[in-house]
């Protein structure tokens, strides 16, 4: 691990927390990430010295707050190389962003029999909103199947996309770590006449994102997984689509005019930001994006390739057949997220023992039950790494797994 990454652990106050005499080994970043000082400070500073409404009042503090809020929008736009900052909509989380697309673009463009293609590795947030449209409108869902090593099986892609109006897929699996070929998939969708929606929750925090190069029509992601605050998500969409879509929620800020008998919508981005937005949170995300950019997304990806390789090697070397790690073995197409089965132990029991060593992993279905059924499990243990993790964290994981093994072995 490069010296830079060793030093940046100090940027995250929570990492110095000690429980039961043991340091924190936080391996749950695919779930939600920790926050650096600069993000916490940006929020605290705003709350202590300049909290004010945005876009509504004309006094100086309100103007400053508006600048900070809109500055965050511009920073996010640059971070994903959006052609236009107005295409960046702040939502409350990625789930709202995905629901927004379904309830606006979807309602306006999909009717009975229309085909939407998803993949078998989607998060519930990219399945359930579509299920609702199946129930309401009779749209038809197709699922891209997986290969045995947890990649998308693209052998039948063209057939699956035939007559499809939408291809909506995750750029990286939150369970398997699989990195999907987003650019290739967007192009395939467009060739078939479908739009491409990318759930970027797991890739945007971990590697450089360029929506123009990727060719996506929509991209959804979450602030809280990329060192930013909770309570905030991002929807990016092509202006032409966003302009043409009906509104999502109605209320203040999203209107140009309201009469007793009707209303007209505001321009982008206000059109999709009804009510008082997560002001402090957007400012926090602005700071997070500046922090990540300074470190460099390519460096973060390189660091995580190192972590993924090291941890994978340690797990397989130390536990052999006792561990089954799901997903691709080729680190080029996977992030530093390992879901695994350990002996015949239930993931809940494993994570409970790991917790005694202050090793924080998630045990469960990871909001991807259809994928879990495919893996033949109700649950897995998932250890997910981020820029602040290091080799010692991987070692601590292995040591704690050894203890779990001992604890549950028949005495």
């Amino acid at each position: 691990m490069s010296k830079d990454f060793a030093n940046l652990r100090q940027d995250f106050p929570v990492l110095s927390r000690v429980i039961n005499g043991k340091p924190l080994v936080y391996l749950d970043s695919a779930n939600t990430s920790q926050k650096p000082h600069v993000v916490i400070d940006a929020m605290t500073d705003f709350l202590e010295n300049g909290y004010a409404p945005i876009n509504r009042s004309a006094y100086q503090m309100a103007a400053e707050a508006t600048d900070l809020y809109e500055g965050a929008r511009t920073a996010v736009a640059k971070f994903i190389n959006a052609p236009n900052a107005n295409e960046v909509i702040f939502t409350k989380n990625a789930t709202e962003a995905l629901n927004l697309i379904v309830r606006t673009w979807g309602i306006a463009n999909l009717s009975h029999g229309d085909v939407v293609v998803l993949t078998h590795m989607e998060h519930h947030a990219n399945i359930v909103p579509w299920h609702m449209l199946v129930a309401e409108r009779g749209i038809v869902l197709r699922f891209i199947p997986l290969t045995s090593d947890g990649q998308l099986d693209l052998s039948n892609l063209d057939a699956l996309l035939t007559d499809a109006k939408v291809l909506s897929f995750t750029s990286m699996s939150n369970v398997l770590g699989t990195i999907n070929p987003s650019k290739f998939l967007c192009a395939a969708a467009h060739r078939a006449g479908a739009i491409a929606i990318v759930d970027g929750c797991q890739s945007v925090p971990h590697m450089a994102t360029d929506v123009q190069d990727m060719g996506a029509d929509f991209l959804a992601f979450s602030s809280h997984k990329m060192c930013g605050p909770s309570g905030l998500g991002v929807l990016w969409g092509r202006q032409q689509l966003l302009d043409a879509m009906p509104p999502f929620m109605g209320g203040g800020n999203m209107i140009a005019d309201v009469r007793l008998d009707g209303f007209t919508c505001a321009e982008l981005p206000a059109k999709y930001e009804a009510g008082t937005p997560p002001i402090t949170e957007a400012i926090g995300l602005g700071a997070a994006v500046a922090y990540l950019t300074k470190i460099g997304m390519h460096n973060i990806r390189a660091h995580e390739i190192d972590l993924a390789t090291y941890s994978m090697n340690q797990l397989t070397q130390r536990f052999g057949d006792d561990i089954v790690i799901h997903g691709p073995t080729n680190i080029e197409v996977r992030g530093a997220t390992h879901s695994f089965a350990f002996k015949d132990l239930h993931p809940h029991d494993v994570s409970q023992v790991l917790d005694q060593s202050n090793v924080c992993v998630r045990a469960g279905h990871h909001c991807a039950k259809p994928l879990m059924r495919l893996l033949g499990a109700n649950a897995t243990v998932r250890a997910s790494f981020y820029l602040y993790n290091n080799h010692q964290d991987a070692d601590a994981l292995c040591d704690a797994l050894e203890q779990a093994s001992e604890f549950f072995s028949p005495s």
Partner: protein
Amino acid sequence: MPGLEDLYREIILDHYRSPRNRGELPPPAVRTEGHNPLCGDEIQVYLSVDSGLVSDVKISGQGCSISQSSASMMSAAVKGKPIAEVRSIVRRFKSMMTLEEEETAEADDQNVKLGDLEALQGVVKFPVRIKCATLAWNTLLQGLDEATA
């Protein structure tokens, strides 16, 4: 901080390793299913009710040591008991599993003995696991309601 021993008592691990009353019952036994949305665990409870008694009970499904042993102990505790007593046991167990003292217990529940089930008391110190311990019980309650509806 509570230690692992508080959670994983020997008797719990024993029920986990050798679960009692595993299996299924054919109709007219009532079959109910429970989910733990947190971890994805699923359980099926089969219930035969006969002249006011829980004449037979079987458990299938998967889960962690806490949910499996809780289901196993539950099956042993309620099999052959009158329905009213079973409901008492359920209430007593669920009140043992609540953090705040809710007044759900009824007067004569005090006479009911939980026996081995007391071993699950330690679960309360691990709030995330309470849902594991109560999964089978909520499923049983549903089944009782159906069987006696």
